[in-house]
């Protein structure tokens, strides 16, 4: 196991800049998720750790050693690919044992070791099959087995669960989580699924347009999103963001928006400074909203847009007069119909404020 470090790494493909300039370091034994929308540079970053792409500038270090120009085979890494990349002409035993074959292990030894790993992953009785003869979930575990069969410094995952159906994905996610905590391996995991990142990572790097917007533990990302981008990306459904007009009046912050009834919020220096621009974004998580009486304080109101029953709870989405939408995640038996007036209340403690540029304003006392 080893640490991973990026020093001012950039990568361009012709005139396209995939990664402008990123630096970060991942400690030994960490499970880091690179999270972001497609095209944000997360896969390119992972491939630079693997050595499958060479950075245009900057340095990549694994275990403190400069590996920027080292061939993938010399990096002592494992990688699980999105399409699994199982060799179609080899049976499972040969697929899993392939890394040992190139290391010059004897056939008996490598098949015994492959069997050991396969048994842990519950595919031990499929060793004679070809990849085309097993299910998607089994293929996924085979590719995982191939990554685990030899000792590695870093384990890389490129959206390994995205081709599985929902139930298998949950199962595989739980297994990966257990495995990483159990082995204490250093893992870098690329995903666009925020739930996967939240469940697996010890730290998440949220990426946007080739840059790391926030690099923090999941709970921190969730509670204190650094920007509106992070707030909008993390959470299911993501945080509601309401553009508001802001002013400080009589030592109180006053926010105005269609349907919003929010008499006042306390002011800090940072808030006062941001309010000077006149505009802010008010962020409230769907789970912090409750049904309330029309006209009461600390509420936001509009007409019902959609009421989706999710089983234990409902996702109530309402549209405000300026056609901005707000979604609440609530337990309700109420029969609300499309077009009905809906009022949702919130606790001012749960409000997150973002300044004009979209950066989070630190809460009072933070």
């Amino acid at each position, binding site marked *: 196991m080893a640490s991973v470090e990026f020093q001012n790494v950039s990568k361009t493909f012709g005139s396209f800049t995939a990664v402008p300039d990123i630096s970060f370091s991942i400690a030994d034994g960490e499970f880091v998720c690179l999270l972001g929308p497609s095209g944000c540079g997360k896969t390119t970053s992972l491939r630079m750790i693997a050595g499958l792409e060479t950075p245009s500038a900057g340095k990549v270090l694994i275990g403190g050693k400069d590996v920027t120009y080292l061939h*993938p085979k010399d990096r002592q890494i*494992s990688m699980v690919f999105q399409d699994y990349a199982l060799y179609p002409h080899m049976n499972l035993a040969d697929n899993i044992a392939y*890394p040992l074959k*190139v290391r010059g292990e004897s056939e008996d030894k490598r098949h015994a070791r492959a069997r050991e790993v396969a048994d842990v992953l519950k595919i031990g009785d499929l060793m004679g099959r070809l990849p085309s003869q097993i299910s998607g979930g089994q293929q996924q575990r085979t*590719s995982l087995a191939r990554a685990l069969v030899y000792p590695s410094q870093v384990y890389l995952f490129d959206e390994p669960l995205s081709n599985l159906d929902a139930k298998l994905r949950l199962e595989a996610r739980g297994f990966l989580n257990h495995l990483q905590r159990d082995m204490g391996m250093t893992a870098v995991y690329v995903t666009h699924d925020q739930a996967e990142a939240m469940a697996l990572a010890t730290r998440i790097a949220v990426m946007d347009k080739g840059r790391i917007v926030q690099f923090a533990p999941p709970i921190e990302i969730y509670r204190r999103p650094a920007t509106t981008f992070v707030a909008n990306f993390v959470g299911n459904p993501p945080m509601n963001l309401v553009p508001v007009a802001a002013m400080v009046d009589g030592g109180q912050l006053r926010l105005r928006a269609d349907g919003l009834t929010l008499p006042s919020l306390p002011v800090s220096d940072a808030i006062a400074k941001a309010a000077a621009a006149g505009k802010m974004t008010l962020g409230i998580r769907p789970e912090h909203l409750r049904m309330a009486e029309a006209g009461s304080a600390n509420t936001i109101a509009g007409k019902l847009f959609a009421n989706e029953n999710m089983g234990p709870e409902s996702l109530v989405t309402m549209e405000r007069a300026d056609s901005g939408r707000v979604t609440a995640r609530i337990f309700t038996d109420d029969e609300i119909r499309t077009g009905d007036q809906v009022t949702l209340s919130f606790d001012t403690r749960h409000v997150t404020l973002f300044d004009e540029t979209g950066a989070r304003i630190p809460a009072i006392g933070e």
Partner: protein
Amino acid sequence: MQISRSIYMRRAVFSVVASLIGVVFALPLVWFIFAPFNARAELGLAIPSPFTLSNFVTVFQNSFAMHALLNSLIQAIGGVILVGGAATLAAYALSRSSIPGKGAVTYILLLFSSVVSGSAAMVPIFLIISAIGLIDTHLAVILVFAGGLLPTAMFILRDFIDAIPRSYEESAMVAGASPIQAFFDVALPVIRPGIVVVVVWAFVNIWGSFLIPFILLRKDTLMPASVAIYSFYSEAGTPIVTLLAAYSLIYSLPVIVLYLFVNWKFGFRFFGGIKS
């Protein structure tokens, strides 16, 4: 009722027309199968009576024609090895590496390939081959065919390889394989169906070709079967139909056997082939 009857009519007409066209194409083949076994075969279609192998006996006694089959085999196999090997390596490089302008290179080569093995370039090819001193050798025939067939073979294979995910070799290299190991262990077996297609195609091309060996070879002992077939013409220039038919059947057997063998062993898979 009215509608279904008109559908039946249409189908009936279609079937009749299709059968007629089929018969037109089938007749020469039927002749080709019957004539060799008929001691009095003519250009007309006739069921052999009696059924005889005497034509074959005469053909087997023609040592020039029999040796020509061996020459055809040498030239075709030599050409296939060169085309198959070079096209695989070249197509793999063109597909996987980022050479600027590689698309243009492929298409220009493809454009000129039809010229190289075509009759338009016969004079320059003859001059070049005679300048290198290769006139009247198997190697000359093999090289000219390789030059003519390689670009198309590369084109077919490149598209085939393009369709194969790079993650195969990438996963092998991450797992510790060198690029050469990754090529032989992982990429080559996956590309094999494409190589088989190219090999069969090249073999058939060389096997059936007349002009190039006819021009580049002089000695009887080097002539391939496509040229030797003329030894079954009388001195007046008219074909001896019986012997010609028997020799043609022998001449076509290797191609049929190759096709059947490949189909049984690998199966023809054209996916990854030419993209629209």
